[in-house]
């Protein structure tokens, strides 16, 4: 896939597009020189099997007790009218990433050629600023590597023309991965014809992970309610303690 596309890139001519509507002169639209990897998560198809979570952990050797990507489960309503909803969570590969903004050593950067936000583990000093600044809570300290870590669309796989592990593992075809810069790719076509949304659009991060039917209850905001304290206490209970060493048992 990668090879084929490099060939395309060399051969592709410069398209000329006439902007008839405004009567402006022809302008040159350069042929595809860069990629824009993106993922579309179709929540309507997700059955909550967690295959993506498992595949991710296996592919990226994520230590026990930590997740690069995971599925959030939500139950809506009350019996007998109940909805079980799932939200696939992963790094949103923002176009204006808050984590890249705050990194003091440029250990995390957005690759210009394909828009993936990558980590340079050898540069990372482990200050934790990117973890604090990520609005999606997608970053964590990898206890074995002792640096910040995050989903990078399985960098070694996509660079070699494969799809990310989670996309390969998805049993119901809920995950679509592709190139937004290519208008004929499956994801571009789906995005053009389906109503989709991104998480926390108001932050202006321009995420590259799109969702179909990501319900507001799934989007991980705290709601205006009197019970928010319980919500936060519940949240605190689930944070692994910094001294936790249960991941070592599975080394």
């Amino acid at each position, binding site marked *: 896939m990668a090879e084929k596309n490099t060939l395309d890139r060399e051969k592709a001519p410069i398209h000329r597009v006439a902007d008839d509507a405004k009567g402006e002169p022809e302008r040159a639209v350069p042929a595809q020189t860069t990629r824009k990897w993106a993922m579309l998560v179709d929540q309507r198809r997700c059955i909550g099997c967690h295959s993506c979570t498992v595949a991710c952990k296996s592919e990226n050797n994520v230590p026990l007790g930590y997740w690069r990507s995971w599925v959030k489960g939500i139950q809506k309503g009350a019996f007998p009218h109940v909805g079980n909803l799932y939200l696939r969570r992963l790094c949103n590969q923002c176009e204006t990433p808050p984590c890249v903004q705050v990194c003091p050593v440029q250990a995390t950067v957005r690759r210009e050629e394909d828009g993936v936000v990558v980590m340079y583990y050898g540069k990372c000093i482990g200050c934790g*600023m990117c973890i604090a*600044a990520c609005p999606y*809570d997608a970053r964590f300290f990898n206890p074995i590597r002792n640096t910040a870590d995050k989903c990078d669309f399985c960098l070694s796989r996509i660079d070699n023309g494969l799809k990310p592990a989670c996309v390969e593992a998805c049993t119901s075809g809920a995950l679509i991965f592709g190139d937004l810069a290519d208008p004929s790719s499956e994801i571009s076509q789906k995005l053009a014809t389906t109503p989709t949304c991104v998480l926390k659009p108001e932050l202006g991060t321009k995420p590259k992970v799109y969702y179909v039917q990501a319900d507001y209850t799934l989007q*991980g*905001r705290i709601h205006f309610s009197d019970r928010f304290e319980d919500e936060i206490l519940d949240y605190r209970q689930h944070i692994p303690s910094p001294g936790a060493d249960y991941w070592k048992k599975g080394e």
Partner: protein
Amino acid sequence: MDAAVLYNVPHEVPWKVYIPLYFYFTGLSAGSFILSTLSTVFGIKRFKPMALPAAIISFILLLLAPACLILDLHQPTRFWHTLVPEYFNRTSALSYGSWLLTIYPIANLIYIYFIYVKYDRVTKILGSLTVPLAIFVHAYTGFAFALVRARAWWHSALMPGYFLTSALLSGIALLVVVALVMDRFQKNKLDPELYTSLRLMMVAILLVDLFWSGSFWLTLLVSTADGYASIMLAFHEKLYVWGEYAAGMLAPLVILLLPWTRKHKAWLCVASLLIIGGVFLMRYSVVFIGFDIPLS
């Protein structure tokens, strides 16, 4: 519609108590340094006896502060990466901060030397060059928070100003304690007027800090759901309400204003110690209440 989170993955808080401690030490240091320059740069003779001790305290705290910062790193041996010009990130407050934290102690040390040899003209020039450094070295920590748009509790334009004034406050309070100790063991006593001016400065800055807090609360109360949740959570935290505000700000303010307590040195010492504790709690609550609001 009622909805319950069945399962989710929150990640652990990346910072330990070293981070608020670090903010606290740089704040104390910047505050003491500015106090030291009051006589050497701004020519207020009354503060002359404080110039040298304040500068020395400021320098010692500056050695502790980066130590805390490095202790908190998960890769402490790589701390020098922040000083590699190629790695410099011009959008990161921390990048500027690590350079400031390197240059400022050096400038501070030279400044101390010239106070010590009583070379007033050079001291004045060096002092006026170092004052902006002292201000920035602390204001940048405020920017490190204010520039994080993910967390409503941090993402406030008030942060740098609030950090700066509370740094001054803690610096003055520490110097009052030091002056009281010096007075006790030195033969030539300090001018009682000195305490009056320090007390009035503390009162003024406490009022400014309370104003910042009020603006902060009001804007958060009518802010987004995250902002509202953080401020309501903060009001439920005993350490925040009773520690930071009641014991750390209101109690010292009352002690410093009431006619029958403000004259006594013992009460002045108590108020200063309360302020020193309260400013640490302010750093602590800024850092950790920010992490209490779930983002995913």
